[in-house]
C-alpha cells in the first residue's frame, strides 16, 4: 500500500489506470468509467438476486417488480434451508459429485493431453479430433442409454443412483474440453526442457512428474475449475441418474423449491437458492483466478 510516510505522492485511481495503459489522465478517466460500467453491468444480476432474496414473499411476487425491498426478511432463505431433505444435504451431494468429477477429469485429461502433446502417435490429429467429437453430440441423447447401462448389475453392484455414476456422466461431458486444454498446456512448454531432462536420463513418467506437471499447474487448475462449474450447474443427468431425495443435487432442489401451481414461480425462494448456490463458485473462482487466466492463455500464443 502506498503511504505518505514512505514519501510517495498519493495518486488518483485515474492516474494509475492511465499510467498502466500508457495514456493521459483524461483517457484514464474514460477507461476507468468504462471499467466501472462493465462491472456494474456484470454485477447487476447478482445484486438484484440478492435484493429479491431478502424481500418478504408478497413483495417478491409483485408485478411489476419493485427492485429495492421495502422490508427485509430471511424467510426465503429459511424455506431453501428447510426444503425437503435440507439444503445441507443437497450442498453436500453437489460438492461430492463435483469433487469426484474433478478427480476423474484430471486422471484422464492429464495423461491424454501429455500423450497428444509430447509423443509421436500415428494419426495423432485424427485421434485428437475423435476425442473432441463428443462435443458435437447433444448429451441429452446419451443419458437414457447411459442410465440403462448403469442400472444393470455388474459384480453385484449397480451404479445408478450413486454419486459416482453422476460424476462419471459429468466427466464424460467435460472430458473433451479438458483434454483440449491439457494438450495446449503441455504443448506450450519449450521443447528444450524436455531435451535437457532426456539428457539427464529421465524417462517419460519422470519427465511428466518432475518437469511438466509443475509447469502445467495453471492448466490443471483451469480444467478443475471448469469441471467443478459444469458439475455444479448440471441438472438433467442429476435428475435422471438420482432417484432419492437424499441423493439430489443443488440444481434439482432449485427447480423444485421455486415451483408453484401451473408454472407459477416463487421468486423469493428461487433467488435465495441462486444466491446460496453461486457462493461456492465465486469463492473457488476468486481463489484460483490467477491460475485460471494463465491456464486459459496456454497455447494461445506460440
Amino acid at each position, binding site marked *: 500500500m502506498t503511504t505518505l510516510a514512505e514519501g510517495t505522492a498519493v495518486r488518483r485511481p485515474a492516474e494509475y489506470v492511465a499510467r498502466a495503459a500508457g495514456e493521459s489522465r483524461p483517457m484514464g478517466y474514460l477507461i476507468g468509467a468504462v471499467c466501472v460500467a462493465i462491472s456494474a453491468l456484470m454485477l447487476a444480476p447478482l445484486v438484484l438476486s440478492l435484493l429479491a432474496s431478502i424481500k418478504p414473499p408478497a413483495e417478491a411476487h409483485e408485478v411489476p417488480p419493485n427492485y429495492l425491498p421495502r422490508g427485509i426478511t430471511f424467510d426465503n432463505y429459511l424455506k431453501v434451508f428447510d426444503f425437503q431433505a435440507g439444503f445441507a444435504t443437497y450442498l453436500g451431494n453437489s460438492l461430492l459429485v463435483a469433487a469426484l468429477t474433478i478427480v476423474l477429469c484430471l486422471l484422464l485429461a492429464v495423461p491424454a493431453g501429455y500423450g497428444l502433446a509430447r509423443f509421436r502417435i500415428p494419426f495423432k490429429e485424427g485421434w485428437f479430433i475423435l476425442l473432441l467429437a463428443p462435443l458435437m453430440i447433444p448429451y441429452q441423447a446419451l443419458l437414457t442409454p447411459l442410465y440403462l447401462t448403469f442400472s444393470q448389475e455388474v459384480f453385484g453392484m449397480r451404479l445408478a443412483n450413486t454419486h459416482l455414476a453422476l460424476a462419471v456422466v459429468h466427466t464424460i461431458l467435460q472430458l473433451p474440453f479438458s483434454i483440449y486444454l491439457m494438450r495446449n498446456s503441455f504443448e506450450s512448454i519449450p521443447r528444450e526442457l524436455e531435451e535437457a531432462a532426456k539428457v539427464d536420463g529421465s524417462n517419460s513418467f519422470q519427465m511428466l512428474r518432475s518437469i511438466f506437471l509443475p509447469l502445467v499447474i495453471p492448466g490443471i487448475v483451469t480444467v478443475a475449475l471448469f469441471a467443478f462449474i459444469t458439475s455444479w450447474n448440471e441438472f438433467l443427468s442429476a435428475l435422471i441418474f438420482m432417484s432419492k431425495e437424499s441423493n439430489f443435487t443443488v440444481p434439482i432442489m432449485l427447480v*423444485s423449491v421455486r415451483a408453484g401451481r401451473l408454472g407459477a414461480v416463487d421468486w423469493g425462494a428461487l433467488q435465495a437458492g441462486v444466491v446460496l448456490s453461486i457462493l461456492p463458485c465465486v469463492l473457488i473462482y476468486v481463489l484460483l483466478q490467477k491460475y485460471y487466466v494463465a491456464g486459459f492463455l496456454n497455447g494461445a500464443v506460440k
Partner: protein
Amino acid sequence: MNVPKRWRAIAIAAISTVALIPGTSFAATLSIWARASSSNAAQHMIDLWNASHDDKIELTTIPDNQMVTKLATSVQSGDVPDLISFDLIFMPDFMRAGLLTDLTDVLGADPNQAKVAQAFKDLATYEGRLYGTGFTPDVSILLYNKDLFRKAGLDPEQPPKTIGQLEDFARKIRASDPNAYGYYFSGSCGGCNIFTQAPMMWASGATLLPSSADGPAMEGTGVKEVLTMLHNMWKDGIIPESAEADTGANFQATFETGTIGMQGSGGFAIAALKANHPEIDFGIAPLPGVNEGDASSFVGGDVIAVPKGSKNADLALQFIQWQLTDDAQLNGLAKNLILPSRSDLADNEFFKAEPRYVTTAQAVGIGKTPYAFHFNDMVNADQSPWLTMLQTAVFDGDVDGAIAGAQETLRSIAAQ
C-alpha cells in the same frame, strides 16, 4: 476384515433369535415420487401415515415438467419408486404405455373408491381397468376482487353467471379505475388456460380435445364465444399487456397486485391469498359458460398410482386404500385446507369457517377433465395447437382461422 469368532457367534445368535420370534417382522420403507408443486399436500398425507404405521414412506420431489421423463426412464431401467403421484392429465398416456400396475381387483371393491370424484375415476380407467385414484386434487374457479367490484358499482356477492356478464363486469371495472384491469390470463401458458379458460368452453357444451383421430376437436358452443370474448377484452385494453408474454410465472402474482378484477384460478389461491395478502377482499365462483347455469370447472391435481416394478406393491396399495379413508381425507387434507378427493367430504368441519373452500370442494364434483392421449403435445407444449389457437385468436384476432388450425393439428396428434 477380521471379526473375533466370539463376536461373530453373538451376532449370528442375535439375528437368528429375532428372526425366529413369532410375529417379528421388519418394517419396510416405501418410496413415493410426487411432483414439486403438489409435494406439500403429499407430505401432509405421508406425515399422517408415518405417525400411525410401522412401515414408513419417504417422499422424493420431482420437478413438475420432468415427471414424464423421469418415470419413463425409471420404468425402463427397473429402478422405480413404490408409489407415484403426478398430474392426473398424464394418466391416459401412462396407462396406455404400460407404466402402471392394474389396481382394479382391490381398488374396484373398495367402498371409498366409489365416493372419489368422477373425474379421477374416469381419468384412471383404461380399457375397463383401474390404474390409480385421486390423491391431492385441485379445481379451477373464478377468482374476483370484491373491492374492485364495489368500486365499479357491482354487487360483490353476485359474480358473473355467464361469459357475457363476465365481459360486461370486466369493462365496468376497467372504466372505474385507470389502474385496474377487468380480467387477466397467462397468454403464453397452455396448462394455465386449459385449467381456466377451457371450462368456460365446455360448460356450454364444447368438446375440446380429441381422444382419437376422428374424434371431435374444438367443436360445439363455447369455443368461438370464449375466444371472441377474450379477444374483445384484449383489443379494448381490459386485459393488461403483460398477459401476452406470461408463461405462467406470474399466474398467481398478477391478481395479488390488487389491480385485477377477475381471473380464472385454482382452489390453491385461497390459502395463498389469505396468507400473503390478507388486505385483498376476494370471492370465488364457478367458471361461467355462455348461458346461465352452464358453470363448470377443470378437476386437476394429482392421482396416485403404483408403477410397474414396484418392490412393495402390496404395501403401496395399502397406502392408497388408507388415503381414501375418512381419517386420511379429513385429517391429512381438509385439516390442512386441501381439497379432499372424495366428493362426499366436500362439506366438512374444517371448511366450515371458510365457505369459499366448500364452494371449491363442491366444484370437484361438477367439474371434469379431458381424457386425451398426448396431452402434453396438444396443450402444454410451447407450440401446442391449444396455445397457438388461443394466441392467434386473442392477440391476432383471427378467431375462425385459429379454431380451424387447431382442429387440424389436434386430430393429427390424436392419430399418432
